């Protein structure tokens, strides 16, 4: 079989193995776009991986004044976990500690899901009896008096059980600089795709992991097959030229959105061609037995 190449970059014939997740979207608004972003960044801080953060979260996109319920600048945030209870806990804690506390913020539902999650209906108790509820157009909002004025928070937001976590691309190149540049480009391209986030720092993971470890109690450890410093090892999957590998992980509200993001990302990585030092684009999987969603790179390319 001929090797699949895009602009000289080898697309390894493998697939990204992804998992079902539950996800939600909330909209954060503030007096300025800058403060909406500060609030959203704080809420999605320390939300790179469910392995130890409790949730995976990120900023989906910024919203103009005309797109938000209160006509102020806003940010759409996505949050994912493995089950609904955890998503509820994470949402309550993160909105309560990071959005409620943020100057001038308000928080609204961003998803009409098949199920709903409590938003203001649990945070209202912060109002200590002074909270007020208002129904506008069939949607209930809580007004909670706070030192900065009033925190407005919609009662509920939607949840989807059709979310997908762990879509990924592994980028192999001849220099760290080249791989970082290509991945940065890819994250930017993926940011344009609706319904997805790339939860890791700047969208990029430099320490992809495998399940388990030689140490008892360590649930994940370095993906040594892709660590360039261990190319001598029989387990290594890397070509001799590989100097760095970076990974982009994608979570999305639907499998289609993850597919589209991977497509955009893959082409953004390959854009500079092999000339820029990218040699391979591959993906992480566990042999296909763990996650039901398989994103085959040869289909992603098309």
């Amino acid at each position: 079989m001929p090797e699949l190449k895009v602009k000289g970059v080898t697309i390894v014939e493998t697939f990204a193995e992804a998992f079902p997740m539950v996800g939600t979207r909330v909209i954060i608004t503030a007096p300025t776009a800058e403060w909406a972003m500060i609030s959203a960044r704080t809420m999605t801080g320390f939300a790179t991986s469910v392995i130890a953060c409790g949730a995976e979260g990120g900023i989906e996109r910024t919203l103009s004044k005309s797109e938000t319920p209160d006509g102020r600048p806003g940010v759409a945030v996505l949050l994912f976990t493995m089950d609904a209870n955890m998503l509820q806990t994470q949402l309550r804690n993160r909105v309560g500690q990071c959005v409620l506390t943020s100057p001038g913020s308000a928080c609204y539902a961003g998803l009409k899901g098949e199920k709903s999650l409590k938003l203001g209906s649990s945070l209202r108790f912060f109002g200590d009896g002074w909270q007020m509820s208002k129904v506008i157009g069939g949607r209930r909002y809580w007004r909670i008096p706070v030192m900065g004025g009033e925190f407005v928070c919609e009662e509920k937001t939607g949840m989807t059980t059709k979310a997908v976590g762990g879509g990924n691309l592994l980028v192999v190149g001849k220099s760290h600089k080249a791989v970082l540049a290509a991945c940065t480009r890819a994250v930017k391209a993926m940011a344009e795709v609706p319904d997805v986030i790339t939860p890791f720092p700047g969208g990029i993971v430099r320490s992809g992991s495998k399940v388990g470890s030689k140490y008892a109690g360590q649930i994940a450890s370095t993906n040594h097959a892709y660590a360039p410093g261990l190319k001598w090892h029989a387990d290594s999957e890397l070509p001799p030229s590989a100097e760095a590998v970076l990974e982009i992980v994608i979570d999305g509200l639907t499998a289609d959105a993850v597919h589209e993001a991977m497509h955009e990302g893959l082409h953004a990585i390959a854009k500079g061609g092999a000339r820029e030092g990218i040699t391979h684009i591959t993906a992480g999987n566990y042999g296909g037995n763990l996650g039901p969603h398989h994103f085959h790179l040869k289909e992603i390319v098309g």
Partner: protein
Amino acid sequence: MSALSFELKGRPEQRLDLSSLVPSRLDGLNRKEIEALSVATTREALTVGDAFKVKGRDVQNLHFVGTDDRCDKIGAKLAGGEIVVDGDVGMLLGAQMKRGKIAVDGSAGVSVGASMSGGEISVRRDVGDQAGGVAFGETFGMKGGFISIGGDAGSLLGERLRRGLIVVGGKAGDYAGGRMVAGTLLLRGGAGRYAGYGNRRGSLIFADKPRHLMPTYVDSGVMEFDYLRLLETWLREQGMRIRLGGRARRLMGDMAVLGKGEMLILE
């Protein structure tokens, strides 16, 4: 399919009870059966056919033409569909309605949308007393939905209002929001005396400082309300361009009762 229309033949001798002319009741009836429905409110028998010229077929889309202030209970207990009224109407327009839309291109009598729980009523001109108030046999006034009044409203607007929004383009009478439990009144042209009397948790929004303020309302000063911005955005989506801005003076009351209600006076 064309709207099912009822054209009033002339001023009726008696008040008409038109509560049976709603989609749920008319569905499945033929023209003859519809014309045979009684609309009488006295011992004199009177049917739809006696009072109205009936045309059209679509029961989800009702049209009243040439009605006057004796046409009571149009759209009462409405549970869906749309009613357009070309004329004035009597009392209890859309009372206890649950869903659907009623638009009146004229004035309405007392108790518009009394104890309604959902849906939308718009009256282009004036309405009588107790709009959004308490229907006979009910404990609470309006319990949800939206009433928009282009002209003036009578007294006791939103009496015992529990949920929902009433917007008045003109002036509201005395006791606006009297004994209201919750919900919102947006008063663009001010109100008479005793606005917010006995208000527990409701909001009265005034475009300008009201002339009469009850002494049982206490000033909390001016601040920003994202709630007003939400409301303004939603109203715009309904085709109503009303500038609320975000800043308002907040007075809390009625301190003679619970005291968790408010007046927001736009800055």
